[in-house]
């Protein structure tokens, strides 16, 4: 998924995440749906989501970046990935 500059187009991040969530929940997703709300991602898959983001987009999501605000929707997660990739060192994680 990553480009030569290790940055991923926001649209590509969102497409990937919508596919991930659809596979896990068996229902359709949009970029603005509440990820942890009713009918959303189960706790079984919550850690998988973080691991998937890290592996697919080459970022490290630790500490304060794990706050709910960053995971509320696909849109927010794609913003998080963009910010961490821009930071260039794989995020603020240790």
């Amino acid at each position, binding site marked *: 998924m990553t480009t030569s500059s290790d940055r991923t187009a926001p649209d590509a991040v969102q497409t990937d995440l919508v596919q991930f969530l659809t*596979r*896990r*929940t*068996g229902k359709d997703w949009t970029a603005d749906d509440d990820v*942890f709300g009713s009918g959303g*991602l*189960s*706790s*079984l*898959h*919550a*850690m*998988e*989501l*973080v*691991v*998937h983001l*890290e*592996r697919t987009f080459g970022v490290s999501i*630790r*500490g*304060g*970046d*794990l*706050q*709910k*605000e960053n*995971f509320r929707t696909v849109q927010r997660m794609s913003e998080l990935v963009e910010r961490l990739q821009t930071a260039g060192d794989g995020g*603020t*994680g*240790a």
Partner: protein
Amino acid sequence: MREAVALAGATVTELVGDRADDWDLAGELPRDVLRKLAEAGLLAAQIPARYGGPGWNSTDSGEFTAEVGSLCGSLRSVMTAQGMAAWTIERLGDPAQATRLLPRLVSGDTAAVAFSEEQAGSDLSAMTTSVTVDGSALTLTGRKTWVTAACYADFLLVVARMGAEGAVVVVPRTAPGVQVHRIGDPLGCRAAGHAHVWLDEVRLPLDHLLGGGRQPLPLLVTTALAYGRMSVAWGCVGMLRACLAAAVEHAGSRRQFGRPLGDHQLVARHVADLWAGEQIATRACEHASRCWDADADDLGAAVVLAKYVSAQHAAAGAAAAVQVLASAGTRDGHVVARAYRDAKLMEIIEGSSEMCQLMLAGHALSRR
């Protein structure tokens, strides 16, 4: 198995010796044993080398956990608590917190993680323990139940509500407002230091809030529990190995009706099922550890599967081992008697078998 893992196995085998029976009966582990293992980094062997830890992968750590589990379920439970605390700090803590706390867990200190409450067991969304922030300090109030290893812990990681989200607070055992009440008569893992923990307006600096808090509660709980489930699952493999060894030794040497017990078909079936259970649990754990080490997409399901399968086989296998050893194994403290009680607890903690079934069913049904 790598040399370091084999060496660690020999170290812990020597440290435990033949004392696990006495520890179970006394309901307490010697502090010097815990300190020695903690100083060697062996209570949480997956702590990365950059924090001074052994930096083992999940597969190696799992094999070592099984080794400890075959010797003493209580000691393995303390390892589970320490490893879960370390993993939670590594994932949820910011770099400064990880740098401050993780080296402590490989130099002698021990930690425990507090999830459950009187009205919030499987349903952790019913949790009422809460943390509020006021200027540069936080205040934590609540009552936690059945905190494994709390009696030995230098600090506790307390899972709490923070407004509508979740948070983990690092609480020194000696902080004002903290009370640790030992549970005197647990069914199993009797020396694991289970306790109820009361937190009455515990005030701490803000940097005791891992990653600033406000994480999604399901994410926070699953992250911590994932490590705990792996550790419990591998610990169950160890219990199965200890039970299998005891049953094989007894069935091969004890003679009744003119031949070894193992030549009696109904006894032989117990031995076969025990061996099958040990193999199945091992394979499930190996698969989950490979998923863990590869950050695989199906990690969550693999971890729950390993915990569910291993705990069920440990409970069935321990019961079979007691049956094979009969009067020889029915003395409290005996390895199969301990496994019989300890394994039952493994079907309850870090997600009961029924909760595991619900999660696995949900996983299967979502693939329609």
